[in-house]
């Protein structure tokens, strides 16, 4: 008599994941066949380095997107914090790193505060702050690119404890591990999902919606800051717009990973798939030396395909 009526959704979800991974593997193998140098240590190291920076920024973006919001200021914050490190490193040395990250946190918190208390859609808040912050980057750098001259700072990304594993990878792996734990096993992780799923319900249950929102944006800012610092360390220099590519790439990575852009569905854990996908694709195409416009076209197509495979699509009426 008492039977739970369960919608058979799980199996299809597993299927989709499986298909994604198969396609992913095929892509990697075909790159390897087309360009034998794809599997060299140097290239793998390159992929590791570039994906670690993007991964860190994408983790912050994931929490924000899980809430159904969006953070367009990631690129600007990353640029600012990278520039700040380059600027401060000669005087403060390694101390410049925590300071820059903290500034990222402050930017994120400002985003969150404005978003929550002025009740402006996050896409507009972060668009505004992104513009303002990119102006501020010009201000502190006078538009020039700066070298990161402090060896210890550079070592943070480029140095390596183990041969195959640059420090940047260790940093991002650590952050990823913590983020997965936070996403799955803490109050904060659940709350972001609850807010994304239904804000009113979340508030009713006693979720401190505003606090969580501010926290998520602050976290996103902090991680954007860390990513910016790491990027500066990796490049050995900071430029005015060096982080700007991250804004779109993080969103793409999160969505390709399978987190719904509308929020409430997804997981930090998945984001790494999207990050690797983007990085490996662009690395592979660079090795094959495909003409740049063709790269762009392929990239766009692959984003569409990946999302097509990876997301649970509602009926056309509900698609927004």
């Amino acid at each position, binding site marked *: 008599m008492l039977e739970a009526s369960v919608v058979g959704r799980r199996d299809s979800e597993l299927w989709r994941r499986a298909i994604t991974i198969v396609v992913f593997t095929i892509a990697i193998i075909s790159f390897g066949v087309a360009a034998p140098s794809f599997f060299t240590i140097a290239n793998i190291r390159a992929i590791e380095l570039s994906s670690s920076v993007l991964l860190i920024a994408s983790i912050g973006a994931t929490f924000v997107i899980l*809430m*159904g*919001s*969006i953070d367009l200021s990631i690129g600007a914050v990353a640029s600012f914090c990278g520039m700040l490190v380059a600027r401060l490193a000669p005087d403060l040395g390694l101390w410049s790193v925590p300071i820059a990250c903290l500034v990222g946190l402050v930017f994120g918190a400002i985003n969150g505060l*404005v*978003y929550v208390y*002025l*009740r*402006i*859609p*996050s*896409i*507009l*808040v972060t*668009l*505004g*702050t*992104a*513009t*303002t*912050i*990119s*102006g*501020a980057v*010009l*201000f502190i750098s006078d*538009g020039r690119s700066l070298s990161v001259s402090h060896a210890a700072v550079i070592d943070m990304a480029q140095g390596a404890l183990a041969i195959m594993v640059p420090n940047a990878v260790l940093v991002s792996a650590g952050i990823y591990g913590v983020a997965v734990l936070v996403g799955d096993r803490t109050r904060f992780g659940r709350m972001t999902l609850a807010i994304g799923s239904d*804000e*009113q319900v979340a508030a009713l249950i006693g979720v401190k919606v505003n606090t969580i929102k501010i926290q998520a944006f602050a976290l996103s800012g902090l991680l954007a800051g860390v990513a910016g610092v790491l990027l500066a360390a990796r490049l050995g220099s900071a430029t005015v717009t060096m982080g700007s590519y991250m804004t*779109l790439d993080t*969103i*793409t990575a999160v*969505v390709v990973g399978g987190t*719904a*852009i*509308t*929020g409430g569905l997804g997981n930090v854990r998945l984001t790494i798939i999207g990050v690797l996908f983007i990085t490996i694709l662009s690395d592979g195409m660079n090795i094959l030396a495909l003409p*740049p*416009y*063709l*790269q*762009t*076209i*392929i*990239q*766009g*197509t692959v*984003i*569409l395909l990946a*999302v*097509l495979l990876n*997301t649970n*699509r*509602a*009926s*056309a*009426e*509900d*698609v*927004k």
Partner: protein
Amino acid sequence: MSNTWYEPQTTGSTAGVEAKVQIAQFYNRHRPIINAIGPLLLLMAMAAVFASINPRFLSWINLFNLMRQSSILLIVSTGITFVILMGALDLSVGAIVTLVAISSAVLIRDFDVGAAGIAVAAAGIGALCGLVNAALVLRLRLPSFVATLGTMTILGGVSTWISGGANVFFQSPNLTWIGSGSVIGRIPNSGVFALLIFVVASFVGARSHFGRALFAIGGGGLTARLSGIDVLRTKAAAFVVSGMLCGVAGLLLVARTSTGTSRMGDDLLLQAIAAVVMGGTALSGGSGGVHRTLTGVLVIAVLQNGLNIAGVHTYLQIMVTGLIVVLSVTITLDRSRLASIK
């Protein structure tokens, strides 16, 4: 039961609470007026500041300047408003403008297409791009944010491929006249053209069945369908209209520059979204209106123009622009209609 623990709460800070309540009540009662007049006041304040820095800000020449400079953004914003009204987003508008601008330039330079032909081609290419978006969203059921993110990237690549990366320079007096000339006195054609499109679009948005259907879809898709509205066709039409207007904007842009350059329209995307929201249309759809977009466009245009005339340093210009976006949305957005802000 002498426990009256609620009382101290109200007696302690009566004045403050009362004042707050009064402000809230005042706001609620006059919300429509505040939302409508607020941005106008902001515009006037900006104009006053700029005029005090350089009185020529208020000259006729500059007014025509403003018309010229805001015409393309106005057309693009008008187009994207239709899409936003139904609760979707079109991230490909900038890319469509670029694509149309470049392909028009190539068509004129290499194939000697006439002015009429080029107008049809531009609108057609734009509409086609919109159709692709519609197909991705409606047939493949991708969220519009992601689908148009994809087409944005792809179209960017296609534009570079068509132009070969070079500036496509052409000479077409007819087209230049459309973009930069003037029929009525010294009022620029592009401005007249944009206003005409805007007025027609506003009317369509407010009074046509299509516009009503968009509002219904944005406010509640299922209700719309169950009321006999052809949701798929309406949604597709919105994307196509958005694409087509972007095509027109692209043609106007290239008519003004006589050169098709890669990425020339890309900046328009974020500006257009900002303009629409500043105008008071909610990103969640179903609330706002095409006619409101003009305010947002004017805020952006006046800001850029005024800062240039005032000779403000670039860095400061950029920083101020960001702040004004936030400020003006704070004033204009009717949040009472939104259950939750995302």
